[in-house]
């Protein structure tokens, strides 16, 4: 009985050590390696990948549509597409570029399906209500920035959010959005100019 309990404990300790070591290994892995492992059936690799990219991708959607319910649908849909396309992934481009291209295309499809009367709803955006505990000036500036981003044309907003949220280079943004590098730069300039003006006002 004692020997059996000892064996079980030993196995438990070994298992825990293995889990810790495996998690550390996963943390060290690049996105590309993790995606390849997931494509081969390692579900833990996806957990790590998801933990890395969940928040930026969610903000990319919610700042685009300004509606949490729509953003949730778009976010879930984009991840479903990523899961389905796991076996088609080839690590020629960075995983982030591949992932945001899927997200961008999903968003474009959403805009195409959207009826003309379905406009953006800034009122439903969480955080638009002023928080009394925050600094009034900062809060006002944030609201202006948020409203300014929402007011941008779709292409400029998309390009700006990809720049601010994901930190992708211009070439990578061009790859995601399917346009040239100069077009990306032009869109960014217009967006920055508009936001600077709206913040000063």
């Amino acid at each position, binding site marked *: 009985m004692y020997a059996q309990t000892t064996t079980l404990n030993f196995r438990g300790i070994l298992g825990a050590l293995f889990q810790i070591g495996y998690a550390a290994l996963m943390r060290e892995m690049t996105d590309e390696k993790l995606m390849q492992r997931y494509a081969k059936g390692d579900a833990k690799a996806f*957990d790590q990948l998801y933990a890395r990219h969940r928040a930026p991708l969610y903000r990319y959607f919610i700042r685009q549509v300004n509606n949490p319910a729509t953003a949730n649908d778009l976010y879930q849909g984009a991840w479903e597409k990523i899961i389905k396309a796991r076996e088609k992934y080839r690590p020629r481009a960075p995983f982030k570029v591949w992932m945001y291209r899927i997200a961008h295309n999903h968003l474009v499809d959403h805009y195409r399906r959207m009826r003309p009367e379905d406009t953006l709803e800034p009122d439903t955006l969480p955080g638009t209500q002023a928080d009394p505990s925050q600094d009034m000036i900062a809060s006002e500036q*944030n609201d202006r920035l948020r409203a300014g981003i929402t007011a941008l044309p779709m292409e400029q907003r998309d390009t700006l959010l990809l720049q601010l949220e994901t930190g992708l280079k211009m070439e990578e943004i061009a790859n995601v959005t399917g346009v040239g590098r100069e077009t990306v*730069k032009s869109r960014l300039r217009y967006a920055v100019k508009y936001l600077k003006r709206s913040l000063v006002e």
Partner: protein
Amino acid sequence: MSNIPNNGENDQSLRDDLDKLGEAYGQLQHEEPPELLDQAILNSAHRAVVKKPGWMQFGWLHGLTTAAVFVLALSLIFNQREQVPVYEDGIRFDDSMGLQREKAAGKRSRDIKTGELQMELKEENAKPLDNYQGTPVSAPTPDEPMEAVAGDRASEPAAAARGSTYKSEQLQVRADNEDRDITADEPAVEEVIVVEADSIPDAPVAKDLRKQSQASAIVFPAAAEAETTAETDDEIEQQLLAIMKMKESGDEAWLTELALFKQEYPDYPLPDELSN
């Protein structure tokens, strides 16, 4: 759009503006997806890579195999039903043929035991051929070898035309059969028919009769069996008559023959002359 010059200085100013904007953007609230949504996505991702059991990976193959086995079994059943004909009396063809062979073998053994009776039969067979010309063709009996039947009956008219004695040929065939070892493996009746029928002289009438006799042999096994029983009774009577003649003539061998007869047919009623 072209009012923004594309040179390194402007690129630098754009980078500076983006850095400042990034700082302001970082001050915004950091929204995160709901936990339920996280859980749903992770579950979906895990389900997508869960390995199915081996037999489920080829579900379509499993179904196809089952269907193929089912169709094969059905076709086998129907094919077997078509191959084995069932007659009105419920006796299958193969079984009746086996019964005929057994009875034919028993008849030969009896003939050997009562070898002397063959002489009597020879005398009867030596009668003029007029007795046989009107005889209709009938199915072979189980105690008659089929080769003899096919050969004899088909060759009757031909023999008459030749003016030879048909029965003498028949007896020759029988004698040949007796000479053979009956315990040895004999060829199937059908094979013997083919071999023996080749030796029958070619005559149009003989061919027709041969075909008719073969057809009747195959189609009416029950009728053949009934005729066999009648013929067996006639032979028993003939045996009894022979024993009685031997007794009348004072031949002491009649006792031996009678003992053999009783051994062969223990239930057959004996005439008064022999029972005393």
